[in-house]
């Protein structure tokens, strides 16, 4: 993990409350059935947790609620101690910039090089190029893409795309890192390496939530596990 000393620009100095808090949250897509029901949990700041459950259980949907891509149909969600329903639309982008996301389907932009894709959050945050060029290159080398930074995503393997997506999620040193099946396409050795990256970030204070149905991966870390089944959190696994 490249060492960086930049302070977190967007973080207000006085905030109380956990990084993420769900209270009796329900969610549906459009007019469809509720695919999340009565979900309540807390991610304390600096915690590291897994989210597991069978395919279709609603893991990705739960994560979308956290990174503000979807809204709940019921219940309360607060981020950094603030009720997201009461937050006005203008401050949502600033909150999104404090959350890094590894998407299950990567969401890389095909017309941008790997370097440009990874630098995107910094560019959007208004950082000048010379301030981040070295960091981005270093991070790309760390995830094993040092030789591929001028390549375009369609020419990368699935695992390489996944690593580019991870690099983009962590490049801004987010306060919350959300990863949706981040090791689904890489070999076990690379999976361990990526997990170490997440652990290092966590040591620096980032709250980490990883959704995965890879039991081996989940067991390899001594971290609490939330289990989602059919839209509900299993009772025993709720506590952080």
């Amino acid at each position, binding site marked *: 993990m490249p060492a960086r000393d930049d302070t977190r620009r967007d973080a207000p100095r006085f905030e109380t409350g956990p990084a993420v808090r769900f209270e009796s949250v329900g969610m549906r897509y459009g007019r469809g059935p509720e695919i999340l029901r009565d979900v309540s949990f807390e991610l304390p700041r600096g915690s590291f947790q897994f989210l597991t459950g069978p395919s279709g259980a609603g893991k990705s949907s739960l994560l979308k609620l956290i990174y503000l891509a979807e809204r709940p149909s019921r219940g309360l969600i607060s981020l950094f101690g603030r009720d997201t329903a009461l937050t006005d639309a203008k401050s949502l982008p600033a*909150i999104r910039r404090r959350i890094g996301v590894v998407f299950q389907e990567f969401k890389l932009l095909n*017309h941008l090089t790997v370097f440009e894709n990874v630098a995107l*959050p910094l560019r959007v945050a208004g950082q000048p*190029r010379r301030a981040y060029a070295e960091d981005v290159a270093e991070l790309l080398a760390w995830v094993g893409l040092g030789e591929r930074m001028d390549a375009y995503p369609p020419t990368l393997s699935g695992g390489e795309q996944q690593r580019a997506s991870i690099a983009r999620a962590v490049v801004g040193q987010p306060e919350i890192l959300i990863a949706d099946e981040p090791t689904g396409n890489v070999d076990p050795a690379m999976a361990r390496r990526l997990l170490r990256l997440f652990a290092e970030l966590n040591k620096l204070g980032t709250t980490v939530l990883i959704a995965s149905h890879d039991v081996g991966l989940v067991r390899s870390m001594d971290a609490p596990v939330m289990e989602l089944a059919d839209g509900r959190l299993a009772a025993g696994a709720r506590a952080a």
Partner: protein
Amino acid sequence: MSKARSRPADLLPPDAGRDGPLFAVSAILVFLACLCALGAVGAWTAASGWTAQLSDQITIQVLSEDDRDIAADAADAGERVARLPGVESVEVRPREASERLLEPWLGRGGLPDDFPVPRVIAVRIDPAAPPLTAAVEGVFEEAGYTVLVDDHQRWAGAVAQAAATVRYFALALVALLGLAAAAVVAFAARASLAARWDVADALHLVGAPDGFITSLFQRRFFLLGLKAGLTGAFAAALAAAGLAFAGGAAGALFFLPSLELGWGAAFIPPAAAILSGLVAAIAARSAVSAALARRWS
């Protein structure tokens, strides 16, 4: 070390297949709008020149009668009209001036000396306080000879009306073409956004405010509008110059007499190009921000 890092890449991918036709349509609209605007300016300057000339002049014809000395009558008429308030100067034109006016009908130099040619008196009046036509006619009541007073009012009114019609018609055309251009660009911007939701989505999720995304499209369409505008305006300027050089008849079709257009008209093509860029930018901005607001309301 890597070329990717020397310069930030365009966040919006090139949209070549879509931009070509849009460029052509915008350039053509700007071309037509420029011709209309030049025509409006041409009509404007030409008509105000004509009406200004006509409304500060009165023409008096002294008719020739068998038993009278027309030269004396003409001199007398000139003196009478010169005494009227509102008359600035009087010029009693010699017989040759009248003959010249008759040349197209009667031929050059072939007139016998005793041929009855009316004499023309050109009267320059103060356009701010012109004498009434009735007053002008009044001074000749007891003169003993016959005069015809022509104050050009009917003619000047007709010219002014025709010019006003042409210029407002041209302005309306310019406005319509501008609206059409804005609508086309707004449509294209929306289509471009629809084809690029993945970009907008990704930017949105890494924390770009709507304004950031909007300004990408705004810049893209401003440049496109500006380039199309420059092309169309340049073509229009060439066409106008060509028509002016081709001579009166062709130029008059578009009200483009070369001298009367003046320097003011030189600003129309560059202004049209910039305006085209602005219209494109505003249309794209409002289309995209409306679409973004709907998407993430």
